[in-house]
């Protein structure tokens, strides 16, 4: 290629990528930098931001400790429940269903996930509300049961909302698993439980790890589920952020809280990559 041709090729590439680069720069990189700057500022007299350089907002993070605590306990718990509930379903879809039905059943898992989360969580508000399950419980003799505005309701919403996202990675890792290994295990006299525990489960761990990372990250940034099902009682970092930015208008503290959230997510991703996903693939290598 001549020099002129190479440079015109470079110009074309720059023109193609340019608009997207501009968007990322103006609406992702710059805003995140501004958030970092704000987090060292002070609350303005009428709310908002006033320039300053102080660590007070970071020192003040414990004032939102409850939100951090709720997020850091309920999000992992929700992820764990998702794994426990999704695994048998993924196993069923990957190994027990005939090819004819599999595609349809897979599509049916993902369809609710694609519909508006706002509406699905609203529906759970109706189901768990006093005209829903509590009224059925009252019929069989339980007195006043209150489900909405409890950690239980938030957990139900989280598991319901993110179950499809857990089913898929586990399904994929089970589906591409070599069936002959299961047969070999049975031929060598292992009962089905032992085969599941010693062959199938370890081989599908990469799927479990990917799914839980995805779900955990998304759950930590959740706003709608705790807002509806937790009432004002069970709130997450996302809810604290909406309050700080739109109601109490303490933007510098809000900036610090949002950086805290992003920081926790990054640490989670790094830990997962290093220990869980990394070790899972090593084990797979060892088995091969």
């Amino acid at each position, binding site marked *: 290629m001549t020099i002129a041709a190479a440079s015109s090729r470079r110009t074309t590439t720059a023109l193609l990528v340019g608009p997207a680069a501009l968007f990322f720069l103006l609406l992702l990189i710059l805003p995140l930098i501004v958030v970092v700057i*704000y987090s060292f500022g002070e609350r303005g007299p009428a709310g908002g931001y006033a320039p300053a350089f102080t660590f007070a907002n970071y020192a003040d993070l414990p004032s939102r400790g409850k939100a951090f605590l709720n997020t850091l306990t309920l999000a992992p718990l929700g992820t764990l429940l998702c794994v426990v509930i999704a695994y*048998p379903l993924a196993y069923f879809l990957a190994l*027990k269903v005939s090819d004819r039905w599999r595609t349809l059943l897979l599509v049916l898992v993902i369809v609710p996930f694609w519909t*508006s989360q706002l509406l699905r969580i609203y*529906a759970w508000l109706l189901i768990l509300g006093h005209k829903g399950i509590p009224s059925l419980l009252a019929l069989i003799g339980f007195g006043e049961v209150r489900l909405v505005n409890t950690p239980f309701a938030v957990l139900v919403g989280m598991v319901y909302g993110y179950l499809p996202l857990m089913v898929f990675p586990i399904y994929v890792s089970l589906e591409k698993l070599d069936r002959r290994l299961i047969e070999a295990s049975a031929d060598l006299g292992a009962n089905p439980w032992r085969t599941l525990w010693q062959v199938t489960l370890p081989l599908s761990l990469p799927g479990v790890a990917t799914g839980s990372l995805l779900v955990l990250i998304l759950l*930590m940034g*959740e706003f709608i589920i705790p807002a509806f099902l937790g009432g004002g009682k069970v709130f997450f970092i996302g809810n604290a952020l*909406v309050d700080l930015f739109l109601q109490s208008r303490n933007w510098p503290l809000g900036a610090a809280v949002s950086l805290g959230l*992003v920081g926790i*997510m990054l640490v989670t991703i790094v830990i997962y990559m290093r220990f869980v996903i990394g070790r899972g693939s090593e084990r797979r290598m060892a088995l091969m």
Partner: protein
Amino acid sequence: MRWYASVIYFVLYLPIAIIVIYSFNSGRYAMDWQGFSFQWYFKAFADPFAMQSLRTSLTVGLWTAFLATIIGTLAAIGLERMRGWLRQVFDGLIYIAIMVPGVVIGIATLIAFVTVFNAVNPALAHMFGDHAPKLHMGIPTIIGAHVLFNLAVVILIVRSRLAGMDKSLIEASEDLYATPFGTFRQVVLPLLAPAVIAGFLLSFTFSFEDFIIAFFVAGPNNTLPIYIFSSIRRGITPEINAIGTVVLVVSLTLLITAQFLLRGDTRRTAGGKAAA
């Protein structure tokens, strides 16, 4: 096993069924069945606030889908030609845009817009005097924030299609003396079409259903999800169910079309590979 799966499918569809069923309730309380009626649909379509927010959501969704698809497709093609650290930076940005939670994207873009407006508005006032145009939050700011996160989605979809594309077709076109633009228009674009259309439909749906980002940058405007959110906060009538049912039907139609296009897409590339 089968029982277990049935129970899960039942629970997955129960909430959706409840929204749809109670949208036909003639009573005015969401969970109190009084008889069959279409009245909440008529009420919803006669509600000026609901219709205004629907119009806003449609405008935002169409512009978002349009811009994200064009910019994203161009970027995916450009990235394919790029090598080295710049491309890695770009890949990193795409994953950041997808991984950073909506709440934080909403906050960051809100702060950025406000900062820019606070800097620009006094200058505008100085230049144009009393009748100066004043920048503020509105439909364009929602579109901007929505394009950002859909851009990443479109790039990923189009790029996976590009990666599965048979490069010999492009070489053949060049050998037959097509200009680069001719090759693009007559070979690359038709091959990319399913991914581009799927990207458009997905961007529209994500934008149409997004609540949290719009909540921060909408200013005084209501998108449909913001309207639904505040209606649920105020108290529930089956009108929300009626609107919700319409939204469900529309977005499911679009999503199933998108999935269909992408599936046909993988089948064709698989077939192409098998033939080769």
